[in-house]
């Protein structure tokens, strides 16, 4: 774990970190999470796939907005507390200004069919993006300490419970997550 953590690229400065999270946040329509995977793991390579999954699991289980938690944890990896604060502001500052501009324009354009259509098209692309992130992460399950059949069973059950039966996410995470953790614990040395 430690050697790979040293090998991959890292942000050169706090400014680069801030800009990276701003660019990333501005691409997120209907959620930023999958963009984090795309930008941080695949394009900039600041994180490995496994590190991303680990950080996300923690960000998800903690209170607070998930991607905000995630940005803080990634920033802290490289610059400690300062990195956490800079990544957090990168994620929020420009999108906040933008959304306040949008809310003042919203009344004028809310009923425009072209605008509604464009938002619908972008949402469909975002759905594809999020699915692709999930598929890419699934490839790493082969190396998991949880046996593959169990991975598939937990993953399948999670999808059915959340996507199809609309169970509250938190309880699914608690139930299936702890099952995964117990299985991993037994197989780790």
């Amino acid at each position, binding site marked *: 774990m430690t050697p790979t953590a040293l090998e991959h690229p890292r942000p050169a400065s706090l400014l680069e970190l801030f800009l990276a999270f701003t660019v990333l946040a501005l691409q997120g329509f209907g*959620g930023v999470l999958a963009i984090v995977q795309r930008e941080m793991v695949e394009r900039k390579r600041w994180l490995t796939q496994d590190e991303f999954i680990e950080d996300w699991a923690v960000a998800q289980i903690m209170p*607070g907005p998930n991607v905000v938690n995630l940005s803080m944890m990634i920033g802290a990896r490289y610059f400690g507390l300062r990195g956490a604060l800079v990544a957090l502001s990168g994620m929020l500052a420009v999108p906040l200004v933008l959304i306040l501009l949008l809310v003042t324009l919203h009344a004028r354009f809310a009923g425009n069919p072209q605008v509604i259509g464009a938002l619908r098209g972008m949402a469909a692309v975002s759905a594809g993006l999020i699915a692709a992130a999930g598929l890419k992460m699934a490839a790493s399950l082969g190396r998991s300490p949880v046996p593959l059949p169990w991975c598939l069973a937990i993953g399948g059950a999670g999808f059915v419970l959340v996507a199809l039966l609309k169970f509250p996410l938190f309880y699914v995470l608690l139930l299936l997550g702890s099952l995964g953790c117990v299985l991993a614990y037994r197989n780790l040395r």
Partner: protein
Amino acid sequence: MNTAIHITLDWHDWLNLFGHYLLLSLMSLGGAISTTSEMHRFLVEQHGWLTQAQFNDSIALAQAAPGPNVLFVALMGWKVGMNAGSTAAAFFGVATTMTGILLPSTIFTYQVAQWGHRNRELRAVRAFKQGMAPVVIALLLSTAWILASSGGATSGDAGVQWPLWLLALASCLVIWRTRLHLLWMLGAGALLGALGIV
């Protein structure tokens, strides 16, 4: 905008608003969106600081706009301030709700993450991080599924949903297999939508 309402807020009300969001922050396990029903109870039903339509608009607009979804909290603060009568109050509202929702959870998460990082060689910490992977992936796929289905729902007629699913599937394949920049894909989706093709 929607039928606006006029309210008066004194410092005690602002403090109440701030305190409530501080509390919500610590309750927002699984993301800020999980506490929306409690926000609704507090802002719309109990105090009447927001109308139902303003509440719904805040969530819908934050979903549609770029950036983290938690910005719906900023919009609620903005609208409470606007209802109280001024743009200055609206900015104060944004600062109040956003600081409230972020402060406790970020401090807590930062401390826990640092602890986890210092103890990353512990068997229990490794088991937690690696054991969560299957369900984390399932949640990602579920989010994609729900987002794709809700896009179809807004177009009403079930017969016109298949182009949207096709677009979602196509972008999934392109993003999975190539390194094309996302903004191209989003632009293409926006164009297809604006032209009424999907």
